[in-house]
């Protein structure tokens, strides 16, 4: 079957190459025509330091339209190259990244032309904080799916983590208790996912969707029943930001990376640990073996079911922390459906990032940036209707999945329950 399938699917490789090239060229044309020709006259200006920073960096001013033209030409050139020259794997990915960066920069220039300066630091901070739940959710998905269990329930894990963190932190008056409770709540959804998927062999996509419905209903119900009637259960306390002593003083880098809540630091640790562990440790080798070929892994004495249970529950804990960020990490109080689709976007980030932690990080940052833009741009340039800006992350995902990534290769045994022969 495999040879036949390969033969039948072979034409897709060339089609894919043209598709990517065409997408690059379309993005380049958008840069030139939409952002360049139709931009307001004037300069785009970018601030690179916060108002209260000790070291000030002068505001950068660039003429908006010419920059957009230049960036568009770069994207066009990459498109033509992509169509004519065979790229290596690394070059393909760098080209995608380059085209996306060109697109985002021209978007910024277009939006800010002739308007008040945009503060790059604030946008970057926003991008990172918006991305935290997405990154943690995508990492949770990565842990599950690398071991062969599809996790659509990220949304439910985030939501339950958010709810539990808010209610426990409020009831006990302790933020750290809330954080731990949020993680455990996510882990509990992970346990449900594991039991039904691994032991009861339930269809994993169906299971994920059902768990999301269940958690949504449960949190709505408990919100109506407990929180809305008793404000003491939803006080809205939040973590303050922690400045890392020396590092936070560095211009540009400092305020972005080293002046945030504990959640950002947890996210750093999680990314590094999972990336290293998955690809450079015996643990990771076993996880990937279980996700690719469970029978072979079983033959050499690896306990497939135990590894899957452990990874799914670990993933749940991680997503629960991401959920806790949504309440005790940012806005404080819980509102129904506070996760509002972050889990699904995290899932898209995971797939866009080809099931690797670093790839998922890149995709999650892209989505976070789009979300941040949707918040910031209407204040800078009121011409843009907010709903249209809100669409940006989703349209970007569709373009990315259809035009740039296409048929990705998931772990071979992803979604297939393992039954010992």
């Amino acid at each position: 079957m495999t040879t036949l399938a390969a033969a039948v699917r072979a034409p897709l490789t060339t089609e894919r190459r043209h598709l990517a090239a065409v997408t690059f060229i379309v993005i380049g044309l958008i840069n030139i025509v939409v952002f360049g020709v139709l931009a307001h006259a004037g300069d785009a200006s970018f601030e690179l330091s916060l108002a209260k920073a000790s070291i000030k960096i002068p505001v950068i001013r660039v003429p908006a339209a010419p920059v957009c033209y230049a960036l568009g030409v770069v994207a066009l050139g990459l498109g033509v190259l992509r169509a004519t020259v065979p790229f290596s794997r690394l070059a393909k990915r760098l080209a995608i990244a380059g085209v996306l960066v060109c697109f985002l920069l021209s978007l910024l220039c277009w939006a800010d032309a002739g308007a008040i300066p945009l503060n790059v630091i604030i946008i970057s901070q926003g991008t990172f904080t918006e991305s935290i739940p997405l990154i943690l959710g995508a990492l949770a998905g990565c842990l599950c799916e690398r071991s062969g269990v599809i996790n659509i329930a990220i949304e439910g894990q985030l939501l339950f983590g958010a709810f539990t963190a808010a209610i426990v932190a409020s009831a006990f008056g302790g933020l750290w208790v809330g954080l731990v409770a949020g993680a455990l709540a996510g882990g509990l959804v992970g346990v449900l996912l594991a039991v039904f998927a691994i032991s009861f062999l339930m269809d994993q996509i169906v299971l994920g969707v059902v768990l999301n419905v269940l958690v949504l209903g449960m949190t709505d119900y408990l919100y109506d029943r407990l929180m809305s009637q008793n404000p003491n259960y939803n006080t809205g306390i939040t973590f303050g930001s922690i400045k890392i002593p020396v590092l936070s003083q560095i211009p540009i880098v400092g305020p972005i990376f080293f002046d945030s809540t504990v959640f950002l630091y947890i996210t750093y640790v999680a990314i590094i640990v999972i990336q290293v562990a998955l690809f450079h440790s015996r643990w990771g080798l076993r996880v990937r073996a279980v996700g690719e070929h469970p029978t072979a892994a079983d033959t050499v004495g690896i306990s497939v079911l135990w590894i899957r249970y452990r990874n799914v529950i670990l993933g749940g804990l991680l997503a629960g922390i991401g959920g806790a960020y949504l309440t005790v990490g940012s806005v404080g109080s819980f509102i129904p459906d506070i996760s509002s689709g972050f889990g699904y976007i995290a899932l898209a980030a995971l797939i866009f990032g080809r099931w690797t932690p670093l790839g998922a990080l890149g995709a999650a940052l892209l989505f976070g940036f789009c979300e941040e833009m949707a918040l910031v741009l209407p204040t800078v340039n009121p011409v843009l209707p907010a709903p249209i800006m809100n669409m940006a992350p989703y349209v970007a995902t569709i373009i990315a999945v259809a035009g740039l990534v296409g048929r990705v290769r998931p772990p071979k045994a992803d979604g297939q329950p393992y039954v010992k022969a």
Partner: protein
Amino acid sequence: MTETPATGPDPASASTGSAAAQPAEPRPAEPGPAEPGKPAGSRARLTGAVIIQAITQGSSAVITILAIFLALVVGGFLIVFSDPVVTKAWSTFFSYPVYALAQTWDSVSFAYSQMFEGAILNPSTVSAAFHGGSIAAIFYPLSSTCAQATPLILTGLSVAIAFRAGLFNIGAAGQWVGGAVVATWLGFGVSLPPGIHVIVCLIGAFVGGAVIGWFVGLLKARTGAHEVIVTIMLNYVMYDLLSYLLSHPTMLQQPHQTNEIAPFIANNANLSHVGGPPPQVGIGFLIAVAAALAVAWLLSRTTTGFQFRTVGASPSAARTAGIKVERSWILVMLLAGGLAGLSAATVIQGTNTQLTFNSYGTYGPDGITVALLGRAKPIGVVLAGLLFGALHVGGTYVEAATLGQVPADIVQVLEGLIVLFVAAPALIRAVFRLRSTAGTGMEAVAKGWNG
């Protein structure tokens, strides 16, 4: 559930799964031309054996009923634990155990009986009818259930038909919005004679949803983009598009409004009701049932349906057999989108008469649960839609009856639990000690990323 003794059917007479799958409808005994060689008793024993076998081995109908029962039990715990009166009674359990138990029972039974009265039959209307009240009022709960079930059946069909071709359509919500926008625009934007206007709006809604679905199928066929990702993303795109359209008077917003609300559609475009006042059945419900029959016919009686099912069973086998897999994907998503669009039409033209930003409600996710509960079969979807419609009506009723003490969100929990249990027959078998591991038709409705 009592343990059935081991005097079950002997394996030799064990019928196939399909025979055991319909225990609820034993064939009516024909009294006339009874063969003399077969006394009536043996047939009765056979029917009894089939029923016992269905129960002990857990046929799909039995699993569904047990799943609903188990969901009600778990939901009952949720009602009890969040009821302050009951938790207070339990805190004095060792002094007044009977009181605690009675309070628990009262809390649960009141909630569920109110739900039943709101959705199916209210005994007080029956007794009122005997004392000169309105007979029509007896059927009022059932007619609201049908009205609520209509959009659920249609979005359920949308998800179900995609399931049969091996695609997971999470995008019924976005397709719903696509249909709703077109139906609304045709509803107030053009003026046509009665009858024709209704049909134009319905077709428009179908097309509006179908375009969104077609786009998903096209991307899947041409670029390999996974339909789960694309449909999820399109849902959000459509929500934002709806918000944009409803906040600009030049688009769909009602003039002189600050809310996100569209003008009322013309009277000519409204779906009327049949059957007179209160016990009325909306034409929308009839459309939903007709759509279910059409989908059933398409799937089981046509070449296209056969191709859908083959592609769903194994795309590579279908490709080898010469079926154009990509064409099937595009076509089935187009139909799925159209059905979701029709669902929007029945809401906009039937019950709401105008589009607001909240109109899409939870029809999309509910469509998934309905399709799963109905096992992706059209008739099953109709039954599941009716059940969930009843739950929705009952949920609203119980929230009003308990003055908000039992929020209507309990229904969402119940729905999730029912589908969870239905989709995990192994769990139901373990809980109720059923024996066989025969399939329930739930297997592989959705495909993983490896498709």
